[in-house]
């Protein structure tokens, strides 16, 4: 990196991890830029919290339904807003990332590159993609999407609602809906009682609060008379232009439920697209059917083997759910821990001495419930690979059958399949189909390891308007030296010799 950095640290994402990290760094005197896709800070969990607080009393019912864990974000948000030295840039999409600390951003119709000596990825998680028959029908939504509509749109779901899948978020959402007077027809869980029994062995004392919280949700749902079944399988959504019914197998019996809204959730996985695009190492987790970044305990990432665009050390750390799924408290703890590690590297004293040890302990404690939760709620909807007729890549409408056929014909590698069928070439850039394709490849070649990375990633990771690209600022003067093919023929080359 040959040009003057724009900041000491650039943080991508203003959720719990990004905010906590930014606060500690700025409090220690660092210049911090926070780039965030959302219009206001809070991430997914505290989405639109400021706006909903300001809109009281009109939002009292919503706030009370969303519960104390939502409002708990207010303290962090307030400190984030109040800490000097944080250059917060909402509505900003990151579409390129380089290991040398260069970040490509887009805000409205302006774009450019920013550089810092450290970049912290706090870009959170995404819901595990779980293709099942009918999942692309209108009326099928993820639990996260319903929460977005609740928090940011203040929209309550209506009609006959079925919740299906697994993970704590299903219970949380069901409980929030209950408080709003919305009663799902059924909560159809893929996890089984025996998962809980097995999971109990992994329960550590520090994980007890999480267990109690979950039991509280269950109890309230039961008292409210919400029907719940465990160990369901074979979920299908049926309907012509919109979902009309959900079919599933409960206790060995196939049932069909009329349904206007099928809310699915199969747990969350780290968002790895930025890390992968920067050339950072990922590792496939078989039990979780997902990739996660390879980092040290304090979040320092490492480069994947092979050639890289930029030279020099890797300047990227990864924190929060983007590193390990743990929820808001764990994200805050790790965001602070990563901040401490950066301050140590910069030889700057933290605002509170001895913080690094304490944040390390906090990280451990906040993640104590994870082994239990992972065992209690294993991937369910995505446990089995989809049947041939099911769409895997929804952007390009590619079915599992088409993918299997290409693999049978010799396409043994992610990028080759993409080149043949366009799987992963759509607007989402493969974020939703990559893991399923990797598993389909492994299914056909059981003796080969699962692909260590999703599709080859190239910028832009998110759509970048031509006009914004044309007017980009912050270009690297060395790299921007336009190299082009010098193949313009001379207008009258060799005329004299040949005519």
């Amino acid at each position, binding site marked *: 990196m040959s040009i003057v950095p724009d900041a000491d640290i650039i943080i991508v994402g203003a959720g719990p991890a990004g905010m906590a990290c930014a606060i500690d760094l700025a409090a220690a005197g660092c210049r911090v830029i926070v780039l965030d896709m959302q219009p206001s800070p809070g991430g997914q969990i505290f989405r639109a919290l400021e706006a909903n607080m300001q809109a009281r009393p009109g939002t009292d019912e919503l706030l009370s339904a969303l519960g104390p864990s939502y409002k708990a974000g207010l303290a962090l948000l307030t400190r984030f807003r109040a800490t000097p030295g944080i250059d917060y840039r909402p509505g900003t999409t990151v579409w390129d990332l380089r290991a040398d600390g260069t970040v490509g951003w887009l805000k409205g119709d302006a774009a450019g590159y920013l550089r810092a000596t450290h970049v912290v990825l706090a870009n959170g998680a995404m819901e595990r993609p779980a293709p099942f028959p009918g999942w692309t029908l209108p009326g099928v939504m993820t639990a996260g999407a319903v929460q977005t509509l609740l928090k940011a749109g203040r929209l309550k779901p209506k009609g006959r609602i079925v919740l299906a899948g697994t993970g704590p978020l299903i219970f949380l959402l069901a409980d929030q809906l209950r408080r709003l007077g919305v009663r799902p027809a059924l909560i159809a869980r893929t996890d089984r009682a025996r998962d809980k029994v097995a999971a109990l062995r992994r329960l550590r004392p520090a994980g007890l609060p999480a267990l109690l919280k979950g039991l509280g949700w269950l109890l309230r749902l039961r008292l409210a008379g919400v029907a719940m079944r465990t160990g369901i399988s074979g979920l299908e959504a049926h309907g012509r232009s919109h979902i009309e019914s959900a079919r599933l197998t409960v206790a060995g019996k196939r049932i069909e439920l009329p349904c206007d809204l099928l809310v699915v959730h199969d747990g969350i996985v780290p968002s790895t697209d930025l890390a992968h695009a920067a050339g950072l190492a990922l590792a496939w987790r078989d039990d979780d059917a997902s990739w996660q970044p390879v980092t040290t305990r304090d979040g320092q990432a490492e480069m994947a083997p092979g050639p890289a665009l930029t030279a020099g050390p890797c300047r990227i750390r990864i924190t929060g759910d983007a590193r390990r799924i743990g929820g808001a408290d764990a994200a805050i703890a790790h965001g602070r821990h990563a901040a401490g590690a950066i301050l140590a590297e910069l030889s700057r004293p933290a605002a509170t001495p001895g913080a690094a040890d304490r944040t390390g302990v906090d990280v451990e404690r906040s993640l104590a419930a994870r082994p239990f939760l992972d065992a209690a709620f294993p991937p369910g909807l995505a446990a089995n690979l989809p049947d041939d007729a099911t769409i895997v890549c929804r952007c390009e409408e590619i079915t599992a059958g088409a993918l299997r056929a290409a693999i049978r014909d010799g396409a043994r590698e992610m990028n080759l399949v993409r080149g043949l069928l366009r799987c992963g070439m759509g607007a989402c850039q493969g974020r939703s189909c990559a893991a399923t394709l990797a598993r389909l490849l492994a299914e056909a070649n059981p003796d080969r390891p699962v692909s260590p990375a999703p599709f080859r990633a*190239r910028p*832009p990771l998110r759509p970048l308007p031509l*006009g914004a690209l044309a007017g980009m600022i912050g270009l690297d003067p060395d790299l*921007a030296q336009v190299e082009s093919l010098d193949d313009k023929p001379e207008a009258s080359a*060799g005329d004299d010799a040949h005519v």
Partner: protein
Amino acid sequence: MSNDALIVGGGLQGCAIALFLARAGWRVTVVEKNLAGRHASGVNAGGLRSLMRDVREYPLSLRAMDMWANLADVVGAAAAESCEVRLGTAQIALAMDAAELQWCEARSRSMCRRDIHSEKLIAPDALHRLLPGLSGAALGGLISRRDGHANPANAARAFRKAAEATGVRILEQCKVHDLAPKPSGGWRAETDAGAIEAEWVLNCAGAWGSALAARLGETLPIKVTALSMMVTARVQPFITPVVIGIDQPLSFKQSAVGSLVIGGGILGKPCLEGDTSFTVMDRMASSAAATVAAFPVLAGVPVVRTWTGLEGATPDGIPFIGPSLSHPGLWHVFGFCGHGFQLAPAVGEAVARSLVSGTLDPRLTPFAVDRLQPQTPRKEEALP
């Protein structure tokens, strides 16, 4: 089994030559260190362009245009269909300023003198009719009405499959570790698939062609480049011709589904040893700027993907095609400088014909591999 020909490099050129050799009854093996068509062959812009071509390429280019027009005869009907050949959409070189317009006029006069009539000057009103949304600043340009485009990845695949169907053996992920002439004549290659012997060897190794030549003691310089392309989200179909720049890094077309494919000869960062390359968005900015300057209405259209592929460019802008001067039984066919896609069928035919007949096809003479070397008079010419 001994081969008549061993082709190193499974790109479009290698597969096209293999196809025509096999049709003539030769036993041919193609070795490809990665995947056939994986580099420049599969990821170029797919332009079927004679417009603005170097005059030395014209005879080949005109023949190739006929072959693309009748591609079913070359690769079979189904494969030809998959190549999405669109001829007659026209390619237009835009003159955005007086200097470019002057260049167009000079070029046009020069082509007329050569009796090449495929590219013509186009007046501003006709230009604006053909290119809705074009900036008022455009002054005119050159048009080649017969030109068009095809799907490069599918074309690379089609030639490969056609070659295999004609009996060519294609070995992928097969590196050549050693290549040497046999004392008794012919060649022996040590590869990942074992020893392969052949009467003839063709160096069709593209970006790696220079390195392969160097291993055999020959200096055929190329610059390794990473051709870069970007594609936008789909928009209402509005433009049929392919538009290219003259001095501007401009080249774009609208695909059948509506996305704009933008090239312009902007290069990424090559990594020859890693068999890969990187998009450098700092450079793509100038390509986007040229596009938006010509078509201001496109400013809001988002780029959704970019890609790059490795290619070799010779110092004088045309490929090396011809027999080695130091090794009997060796041909070099590489260094297509980013515009070899359109030529490929004709190159395949002309090279195969030369090899089979033992007489160099005259259309290939401008591409002689020694053309850049300091002129040493040949023996027969040196005679008084």
